Structure formats: structure tokens, C-alpha cells
């Protein structure tokens, strides 16, 4: 029972992290129909930026987190500007291959800068509030403050994102672009600006997820690939292009993965994500919450 409860909490934390990454994939896909492979790498850089801020510049963790978000937002916008914008009207395959190339390049850039070995967030820089305390649960299970903090942070960011999209002017413009970019442009919406903002928001949320993973697990160049694929699977599960779907998909996938790793085999935790992703694409390409489009290209 205690193990089950711990795995569920583990899954929820993982789910919150996946949801934070998955909205980045799904928002970009919703507007420019591009699987931004490099998003996983932005998430990884987010973890490294915070790591560098804390170790090299001696910043407090609470400063490093927003700095890393800002850096990643800039990075996301820069990637879009340099690599994707020139291909806006090119065949979709070209943009997809560019995204893969970008991902390959950034992952190995991180490897060159920081080395292939994983790094642990320095203990003295980690806020003791988060790591020092645990909350006892019924049945002898325990949950750390950090886990609770990650879940709360993810939930509040998701609510914030939801409000942003439904209540603000730029949110309305984003929804319009997602429905029909050409029509939105004709209505006087600056679509390039909307796309830039989308990349910035998605990347900043990815950075938060990166910092959390760096704090809870380790920071390594390959993390963007592993977690990125799983988060992409979450976005597909929820219905790609659908933001609420991405949040739901993240949580479902996180719990499924934690239970699978706990009860089946931890070697196959990524395999669970792949299997779910393949089954969803084959049997319900629109995902849990997406509109029904059988052969969405």
C-alpha cells in the first residue's frame, strides 16, 4: 500500500514535469504544425542554465529559476527565428528535418560544453525547505516537500497558462492562429509575433521542468532526449495541439510510467511511453481530447 501510494505520487510529480514540457510541444504544433524536436533540448538547457547560475555565479536557487526561464525563452525565440521562420512556407518535411538537426546540434553542444557525465545539483545550493522535510502519509509512505512543490508549481503554471490563453489579448490571438493562421493574419493579427510568443512561453515552461528534474534527479545532455520523447508522447496522448490534453496526457503518462517502473521493470519505463504513443497514433490519432481527424498529416 505504501509502495503504491509512493508510486502514485512519483507518477504525479513526473506527470507535472511531462505536462510542463508537453505544452511546449503542443502549443507550437497547434500553430505551425511542426514537431519541435529541439524542445527537449531547450528543457535540458534549462536545467544546465540553472546549474551554471547556481555553481558559477553563486546565485540563489530562487533567482536561478527565473533566470533560466528567461534564457530558455530567448533560446526558443532565437531557434524559431534562425531555423524555422525561413522555412515557414517550405514543405513540412524540411521543417521537421531542420528540427531534428537542431536537436542533434544542441544536444551535442551541451555535451561539448558540460561533458557527457551527469551532474548533481549542488546540495548547498538546493533550498533546504524543499529537500529537508517530508510529509508522512497513511501507511508509512512519505512524500518530500520537493515533490509537493513540483506538483503545486506545475498546477499553478498550468492554471496561469490556461488563464493567459483564455483571458488575454495575445491568448486570443494564439487561439485564432491555431484555428487558421491565414485567416488570423487577414484579421490583422501579427502571426510572426504570436509564434514568437508561443515559442517563448513553451520554452520558459520547459525550463521550469528542466530545473525541477535537475533538482530531483540529475542534469545530463541526454535528458532532453529521454524526457522530451516521453513528454511528446504525452502531448500525442492528450491530442496534439490541445493544451488541456497535453496536461492530462502528461499526468496519465507520468502515473503509467511510475507504476510500470515500480511493478514491471524500470528498464522499460521509456518503452511504456513509446507503446502508449504508438497505440494512440494508430487507434486514436486525435488523442484523448483532440478533435477527430483520422489521418492528420
Amino acid at each position, binding site marked *: 500500500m505504501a509502495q503504491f501510494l509512493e508510486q502514485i505520487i512519483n507518477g504525479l510529480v513526473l506527470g507535472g514535469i511531462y505536462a510542463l514540457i508537453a505544452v511546449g510541444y503542443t502549443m507550437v504544433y497547434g500553430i505551425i*504544425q511542426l514537431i519541435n524536436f529541439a524542445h527537449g533540448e531547450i528543457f535540458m538547457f534549462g536545467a544546465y542554465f540553472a546549474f551554471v547560475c547556481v555553481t558559477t555565479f553563486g546565485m540563489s536557487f530562487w533567482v536561478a529559476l527565473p533566470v533560466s526561464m528567461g534564457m530558455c525563452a530567448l533560446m526558443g525565440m532565437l531557434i524559431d527565428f534562425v531555423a524555422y521562420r525561413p522555412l515557414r512556407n517550405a514543405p513540412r518535411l524540411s521543417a521537421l*528535418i531542420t528540427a531534428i538537426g537542431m536537436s*542533434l546540434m544542441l544536444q551535442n553542444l551541451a555535451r561539448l560544453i558540460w561533458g557527457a557525465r551527469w551532474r548533481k545539483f549542488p546540495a548547498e545550493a538546493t533550498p533546504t525547505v524543499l529537500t529537508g522535510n517530508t510529509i508522512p502519509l497513511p501507511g508509512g509512505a512519505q512524500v518530500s516537500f520537493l515533490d509537493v512543490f513540483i506538483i503545486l508549481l506545475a498546477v499553478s503554471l498550468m492554471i496561469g497558462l490556461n488563464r493567459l490563453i483564455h483571458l488575454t489579448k495575445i491568448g486570443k490571438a494564439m487561439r485564432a492562429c491555431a484555428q487558421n493562421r491565414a485567416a488570423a493574419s487577414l484579421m490583422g493579427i501579427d502571426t510572426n509575433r504570436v509564434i514568437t510568443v508561443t515559442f517563448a512561453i513553451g520554452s520558459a515552461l520547459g525550463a521550469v521542468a528542466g530545473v525541477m528534474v535537475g533538482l530531483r534527479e540529475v542534469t545530463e545532455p541526454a535528458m532532453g532526449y529521454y524526457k522530451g520523447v516521453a513528454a511528446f508522447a504525452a502531448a500525442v496522448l492528450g491530442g496534439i495541439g490541445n493544451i488541456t490534453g497535453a496536461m492530462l496526457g502528461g499526468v496519465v503518462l507520468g502515473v503509467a510510467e511510475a507504476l510500470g517502473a515500480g511493478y514491471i521493470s524500470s528498464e522499460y519505463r521509456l*518503452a511504456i511511453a513509446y507503446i502508449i504513443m504508438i497505440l494512440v497514433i494508430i487507434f486514436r*490519432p486525435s488523442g484523448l481530447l483532440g478533435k477527430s481527424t483520422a489521418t492528420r498529416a
Partner: protein
Amino acid sequence: MLKKLFTPKTIIFLAAVCLFPLVTYGSDRIVDLLYARNLVLPIPSGDYILRVVVQACLYMLLALGLNIVPGFTGLLDLGYVGFYLVGGYTAGLLMARLGWSYWIALPLAAIHGALWGLLRGAPTLRLTGDYFAIVTFGFSELLFRIVKNEEWLIGGPNGFVNDIPPPNLFGYELYAYWQQYYHILILLALTVIVVHRLQNSRVGRAWAAIREDERAAESMGINLREYKSLAFAVSAAIGAVGGAFFAQFQVNISAGAFEFWESIFILCMVVLGGMGTIKGSVVGAGILGILGELLREFGGWRYLIFGLILILLMRFRPAGLLSARARD
């Protein structure tokens, strides 16, 4: 046809290809000569040159196989390494565990690969674009996880260590690099002929029609299911042949050789030369296969450069180095 094939130019080219191992003999003699005079110059040994060339030829074979799906039918395949893996492990299992001859294991690996191609193709027939790409990616990653973890079947992460015997041809064991060179050369030539014949046939035209516009092709009476399945099967079989060759060439085979980035590396070759052309795949694989080997010492820089090549190509020359015609 024959007259066109045997122009002076092609004869010189063919002779150069067939006599290539002599070059390495020469380079060995030069190294010996310099060594005798206490001179050490960075001239690679003959075996090294041949090994790099054999590997580049293997990549040409793989690039030709991969090219069939994204190049001819326009569906992006991100998991080609899965078939390479199937071929490698099939040949490896048959030869190392059951002691079968390579000459039986090779066609069986090809058939096994084709079966997996059909198996993967069946549920993805109605998918296009990104969704197809993602399923192919997930498929090869699943295969990779399985061979990495299942020790009882395929040795887990270590694979077979020095277990695969060299192919035996009329009592001669083929293990020297020059023998491997002719071995891959024959496989490569057969592949080029098969792919060339397919491309210029009814099948190839049907594939091109599917690539340009799937719905229009279907309404012109092209059976999408049949032609797509055929493309998947042929492409997968070629990949599996490459895997079988790789298994006996490396003597040991392990999961590490079949990671996702290997698929991207092969895709990079096809894109570099120009998708949808035979010449493009061969040239792209030749350039990157040799470049990849030369850059091996630089570790991370290697993949960084490949990523950059993909980005720059898509931006400035989306149709590849050789293709004069811009797609779309």
C-alpha cells in the same frame, strides 16, 4: 543499354573500384619504406583505409534502402535502424547460436527484415507526415530497448562477443578486409540494380505518384496499400541485408550500434545527396561515411556538425547537393 553502360568513363570507374584494394597495398609499402628510414608520417595503414571504405559502402547500402521510403514515397522514416538491427541480430543468432552458414543467414535476415517492414507498415498505412515519422521512431526505439534488455534471447547490452564466425565461401573463410571489400561491393551493386530497376518501373512511377499527391494517385487507380507495403518491405529487406553484413564484419554485435541517432545519421546521408535519387544516396553516404570516420576523434563535434549540415541543407539546398530540381 550495354553500349551506354560501357563507355570509357564507366570502364575506368569500374576498374578503379575493382582494383581499389591495391591502393592500400601501395600505402602499406610506403609506410614500410618510410619506417625503414626512421620516418613516421601520418599515412594511414592499408587496413585502416579499407575498413573505412567498407563501412562507407555499408552506409551506401543502407542509404539506398532508406531512400525508398522518404525519397520515393515521401514518408519520413525515422526508425530505419530498426531493420538494420533485425538483420544484424537474425544473422548473428543464426550464425553464432545455431552455426548456420552466412549464405543461408543472409537471405533469411532479408526476409525477416521484410516481414518486420510489413508488420510496421500495416498499421501505419493510413498515416502520413509527422504521425508516420513518430510511429517509425517509436518502433525502432522499442526494438532497441528489447535487444538491450532481454539477456536470455540476444545477450542483453553485451550482445554476442566475438561469436560470429566469418562467412565460408567454398572452404575459404572471408575475413580479410580486401575480401570484405569485394563482399560489400557485390551486395551494393545488387542493391543499386534492384533499386534502379524498381525506380524506373511501374512500381517506381506509382511510388512517385504517391509522393507527389496521395489522393490523386489513389484516384488514378494506384493501390496505396499494395505499393506502400512493397516500399516498406523492400526498404526493410535492404536494411536487414546491411545488418547481416555488419554482424559478420564486426564479428560481435551489440545494441549500442542501433541507437536512434544512427537512423538520423543515415537520413542525413540521404538528405545530403538529394532525396529520391540513387546517385544522391550513394554520394551522400560516401561523403558522410568517410567524414564520420575521420571526425570520430572529435567525439561530440561529429554529431554537432551533422546537425548543422541538416539545418543548413534544409535552409539553402533542400533538394540536396546533386539534385538540380527543387522539390515542390
